[in-house]
């Protein structure tokens, strides 16, 4: 009898596990005050929430948990602004999805709606909280739009500010930029998208990072600190192949 009861108990446990909890939509992420980031997700049935995060995908050394429910919200504090973090979210027992984000800091400041001339059209209307790119989004198979945040002030994103009028005059039309600030902001968003979407990047020995999107044919060159040198759409075939540098995954302004 005792053995039967034990078997039944084990069967029930397995059944519970099979009736897996799932995300109903990709998680949402948004910058919060003081450089913190908020992660929020919704489950299709009640379960506890758990987030693990860190500076590398295989080193998620910080974690937090909350109580049982279908909606879970975590505010991650003490992040280094501009730094790429990897995360995994799920229940206490199961990982539901993984991904990465770049910590906000200044970047969280809002300055009007960003124009998205270069980025692919977002497939979903965004709320205040933006969707983040899942590295391995298990429950959702449709592609998730990239991080879209408002750009910081132009003087912080453009390398040699005195040169901006000349670059805008020459290349602004490539992206239908409305102003120097809009052009600089677009280049900054291209930089963010390049990281989120793993666009081809090359690092030169002088620290210059060149980025190219083969789909939109947008090209940008960034200083070692991530500020923009130029942003334009090359006309000639093979332009990207002609650029020197070592292929990289993570640019130097994102400390690993």
């Amino acid at each position: 009898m005792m053995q039967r009861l034990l078997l039944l108990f084990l069967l029930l446990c397995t059944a519970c596990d099979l009736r897996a909890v799932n995300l109903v939509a990709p998680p949402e992420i948004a910058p919060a005050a003081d450089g913190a980031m908020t992660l929020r997700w919704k489950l299709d049935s009640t379960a506890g929430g758990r987030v693990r995060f860190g500076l590398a995908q295989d080193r998620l050394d910080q974690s937090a948990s909350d109580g049982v429910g279908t909606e879970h919200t975590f505010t991650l504090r003490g992040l280094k602004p501009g730094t790429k973090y990897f995360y995994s979210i799920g229940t206490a027992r199961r990982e539901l999805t993984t991904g990465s984000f770049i910590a906000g800091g200044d970047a969280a400041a809002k300055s009007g709606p960003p124009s998205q001339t270069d980025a692919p059209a977002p497939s979903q209307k965004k709320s205040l909280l933006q969707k983040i790119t899942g590295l391995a989004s298990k429950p959702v198979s449709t592609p998730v739009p990239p991080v879209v945040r408002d750009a910081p002030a132009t003087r912080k994103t453009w390398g040699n500010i005195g040169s901006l009028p000349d670059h805008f005059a020459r290349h602004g039309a490539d992206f239908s930029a409305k102003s120097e600030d809009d052009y600089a902001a677009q280049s900054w968003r291209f930089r963010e998208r390049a990281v989120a979407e793993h666009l081809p990047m090359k690092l030169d020995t002088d620290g210059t990072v060149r980025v190219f999107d083969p789909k939109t044919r947008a090209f940008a060159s960034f200083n070692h600190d991530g500020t923009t040198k130029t942003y334009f759409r090359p006309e000639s075939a093979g332009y990207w192949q002609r650029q020197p540098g070592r292929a990289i995954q993570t640019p130097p302004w994102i400390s690993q």
Partner: protein
Amino acid sequence: MSYTCPVCGFQKLTEPPRSLTGGGSSEICPSCGYQHGVDDDDKGRSHAAARDEWKRGGMKWQSKSAPPKNWKPAEQLAAVLPRDGAKVIALTGCTRGCGRALAEFFTAQGQVVIGCGRSEKHIAELRSKFGPPHDFTALDVADDEAVHRWAERITVTHGAPDLLINNAAVIAPNAPLWKVPVAEISATLNVNIAGTVNTIRHFVPAMAGRGGVIVNFSSGWGRGTSPDVAIYCATKWAVEGLTQALAQELPHGLAAVALNPGIIDTEMLRSCFGSGAVNHPKPDEWAERAGPFLLALTAKDNGRSLDVPGA
């Protein structure tokens, strides 16, 4: 630190127009409006064509920012104009030894030197000593892609070279062949043979149709042999052979020659001759003989195996 625009001679660029490895700075010259890394790499505009256009337009300041006080476009331009009849000379291995001495000799003569070598430190030094119209890039001739990029860019900015000098080479430490580490063997084959082949493959298409001379550095060990340098001998014999065959393939107006430079007191010689190297001429002495000899080569020399006079 400020840098000179090779198109108009403006001396206050904030970055070198090309990184040491040859990447465009993306800087738009405020004086002539040429964007380094875009006008050349994307639009295919040569320095000379952009310069002429700027001159035709009255040498006007192109930036929205204000020109410096006492800006003198004609004066700045004079500093970067190649002299009339100057030859464009692509020279590999210009950072040390014979190549460095040739770079010094040719620049002093007013020729335009397009040099390369692996050492970024030495390339930076050459750049600060010899500004535009000369051009120095850090690259490994054994890296076919890097040579391709270099040749493509130079052909756009400076035009095809009149003289291509394949001087870069290495020698493995003295040892019988079976004791030479495999990495040394590969490096010697890759630099001395593949490196020479790479520059020929990437420069010749642009040189064809307008004439020019390709000089492949051989050696006494490209025509004779000694123990302990077998792999070096193999590469220099290969250079002689490939030059002969290439000479038969080249279109009219182009020439390929194999050149034994003689024996010169360089790091390479010290590696194989030891302290005995000091008894041989120094590279700058040698360049006084080799430089004029190289400049005098013509299409008629096609296929010859030559020696630098006095070698």
